């Protein structure tokens, strides 16, 4: 399944909408879209995952990289809209407390 990624700009914030499965085959595309966003001019980067039904460790690893980039460049890095299955993967890896995860209706 291909991955659709759309980046929206809202003042100093960027919202990254992701639709599809984030796997070893598609996570490089997500990484390529995310990495340029982490600059000191950007306040917050939100990755919206409502449209993601499946995510494997390569997807998680890409988001861990995002977390590392955000610490280096001083951005807030937020994940939102996690489905129960995607959230479960974060919980299995015990990463749900490390990321800034907001609910769909937050």
């Amino acid at each position, binding site marked *: 399944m291909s991955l659709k990624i759309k980046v929206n700009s809202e003042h100093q914030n960027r919202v990254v909408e992701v639709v599809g499965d984030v796997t*070893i085959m598609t996570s490089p595309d997500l990484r390529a879209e995310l990495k340029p966003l982490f600059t000191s001019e950007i306040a917050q980067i939100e990755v919206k995952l409502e449209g993601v039904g499946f995510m494997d460790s390569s997807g998680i690893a890409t988001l861990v990289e995002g977390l590392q980039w955000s610490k280096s460049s001083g951005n807030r890095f937020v994940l939102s809209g996690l489905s129960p*299955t995607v959230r*479960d993967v974060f919980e299995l890896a015990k990463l749900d407390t490390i990321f800034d995860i907001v609910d769909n209706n937050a």
Partner: protein
Amino acid sequence: MIRLHLHGCKEGLQALQAMADEACEGVCLDEIQHNRLILVVDELFANIHEHGYNNAGGDIECEAQWLPCAEDMHCRLEIMLRDFAPPIQDVSKCKGVNPETLKDNPVAGGLGMLLIEAATETFEHTPLADGNQWRLVFLFKQKEVQA
């Protein structure tokens, strides 16, 4: 019991996932349990493909079977994978990253094995003379495996 003989390419992953799905046909797994099953198969296949065969392809044999439900009222699905990659003698290479260290120092490596260990009751690796054997056991409550 289901047996497949796959060439270790990424497309083979779909066949492996289909095998896991077939093994659970008629079984009432919830969405999260089913996702964990597919996730673990995906992760192990990707590790064999990437680290065992260096992304160059290779053969993988796999089989899945339900073990008889035990007195503890749990049923177990056993999935065995066998590759013909160089045998792994260093068991540390078959271990996931320690989740406790992730809290202070999140790293991108070793997450696949961590997920496999976390989502299975048993995850065993056995080096063979000409490859590796991987045994996965998933635990389900008996009521969860009745159609």
